[in-house]
């Protein structure tokens, strides 16, 4: 975990807790971070901290695609997305009520929140390279508003047992995200929500499976067990600094060498990336086979394949 990513995660956590606490008390301070972080992709970012923030929310290479908001709607668990939408609707209702009632303080607060949400949502409804990152500020604010709406719903549904009702609602809203995060770990960046059909549905739609070569960490043990002594490995997307760090930490055998491409490699890792399978076919050409020797899958969707020259995989 780099200091930068750790600092960013802590800052986001603090902002969410402060915002949730300011609008909805202690329950809000707890719920706002949970709404934001209990999703496979976000939890992966918080706990695993990839090499940089890029891997967390970049969902594909170049080209244009659906807007950041559309992509975010396919990565945030559906129940949480409903809470975020409820948060926006609740804020609009509070604004209307404050306008009618003449409560200037409430009016100003809700106006600022509504305007900020509108601006942030409009800013991420762009069409460009397919990535979620532009939607992150909107998701942060909506998590805070959603936490407030959950607390308000608890008070509305059963005023005498408001805390218990809020807690029950929170469990229902957060459980799918928590379960999906545990299931996808440590490949949370390849996870998609129920609306996308999970990783299989997303693969059928041609959505990206990962970014940045992080799934390579999952194959280290197999490499250690099966790679021939001194084998040179083409890591494709994974930076050399990461590979050397794994070797220094003892997670990867020190005798395995670095290859610049499939031509000088004994083993090659193909990390699935939409629209760039020519790199995988270069491995087929160089190794004379289209059959991998090992792989990493999330719900049957391939994330990484290992190819080997004859004798390089035992």
């Amino acid at each position, binding site marked *: 975990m780099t200091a930068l990513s750790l600092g960013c995660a802590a800052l986001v956590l603090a902002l969410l807790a402060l915002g949730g606490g300011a609008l909805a008390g202690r329950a809000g301070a707890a719920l706002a971070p949970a709404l934001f972080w209990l999703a496979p992709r976000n939890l992966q970012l918080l706990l695993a901290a990839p090499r940089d923030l890029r891997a967390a929310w970049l969902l594909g290479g170049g080209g244009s695609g659906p807007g950041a908001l559309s992509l975010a709607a396919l990565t945030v668990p559906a129940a949480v997305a409903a809470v975020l939408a409820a948060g926006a609707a609740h804020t609009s209702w509070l604004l209307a009520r404050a306008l009618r009632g003449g409560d200037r303080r409430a009016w100003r607060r809700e106006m600022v929140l509504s305007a900020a949400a509108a601006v942030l949502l409009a800013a991420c409804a762009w069409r460009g390279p397919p990535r979620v990152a532009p939607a992150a500020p909107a998701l942060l604010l909506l998590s805070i508003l959603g936490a407030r709406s959950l607390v308000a719903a608890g008070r509305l549904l059963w005023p005498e047992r408001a805390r218990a009702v809020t807690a029950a609602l929170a469990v229902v809203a957060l459980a799918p995200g928590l379960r999906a995060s545990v299931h996808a770990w440590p490949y949370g960046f390849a996870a998609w929500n129920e609306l996308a059909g999970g990783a*299989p549905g997303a693969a059928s739609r041609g959505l990206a499976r990962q970014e940045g070569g992080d799934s390579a960490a999952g194959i280290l043990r197999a490499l250690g067990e099966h790679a021939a002594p001194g084998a040179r490995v083409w890591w494709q997307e994974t930076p050399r600094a990461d590979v050397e760090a794994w070797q220094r930490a003892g997670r990867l055998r020190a005798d395995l060498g670095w290859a610049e491409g499939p031509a000088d490699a004994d083993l090659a890792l193909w990390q699935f990336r939409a629209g760039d399978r020519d790199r995988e*076919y270069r491995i087929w050409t160089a190794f004379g086979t289209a059959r*991998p020797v090992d792989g990493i899958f999330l719900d049957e969707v391939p994330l990484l394949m290992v190819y080997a020259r004859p004798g390089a995989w035992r």
Partner: protein
Amino acid sequence: MAALGLGGIGFQGGLRGRLPSDLDWRAAAAVLERDARPGDAVALSPWWAERARLALPPGLPVLSLPRYAGEDLLGVKRIWLLALPGAPGAGEAVARDLAARAGGGEPAQRIGAFALSRWDLATPALPISFLPDRLAGATVTVAGEPCPASGPLAFACGPTRVARQVREVGGGPRACIAVRAEGSDPVEIRIPGVPSARLLRAHAGLVASGARAPGPAVRVAVRAGPGEEAEVEISGPGWRGFDVDTALDAPSTRDVELVVSPPGPGREICVDAAVLP
């Protein structure tokens, strides 16, 4: 929200049952090991179920194209469709494409989460010779100057590279002669001793990584003899097929010439040709 929450938990809980287990994969592999013959291939639906490359018998080609309409499927007589009907995003498109060109087969049998069916192609394209595999015996020239061999199936001279490779063209892997060249002189590839038959079916397309890059249209000509030639112009993505009718030709073998105009910097063109009876 409660419905979405419970639905989300239900979706995740049910997903495992909709996808094949290790046992399902082993069972499918065993059936194919027993029943597949030379000339068979496996098509996947949905196309991304590529654990098949790892799990199925090694000698059985695995096809993972999103659609099969218009694909020549050279050398394939029968296709086993290994489908995951319960997987999110699964559809019937691949089955429809195969059904449209099949003359028989076997209905689907369930193997765990799989549905395995067989489609016998009504008019399989069974090549007598596949020209990219004959590249070792070819001569390559640019502006009349020979290009020396730089490997068992490769030639190089200046910026020009000609090699037998598998490349991504038109949304799939294509075994072809890949040509990279700059300047204005066309690359000429002469392949001797090609068996004669009724038809020479060729394909050409820009390699996906540079298919959208700006550049002139690439001309690809296939010459099998006097009056027996065809030419196409390629620009943009796609894998384009074209035929040279050689039915009237008498000799048992011939020299086939592929002439390719330079694709330019950052682009490569992939060309194949197969002799069909």
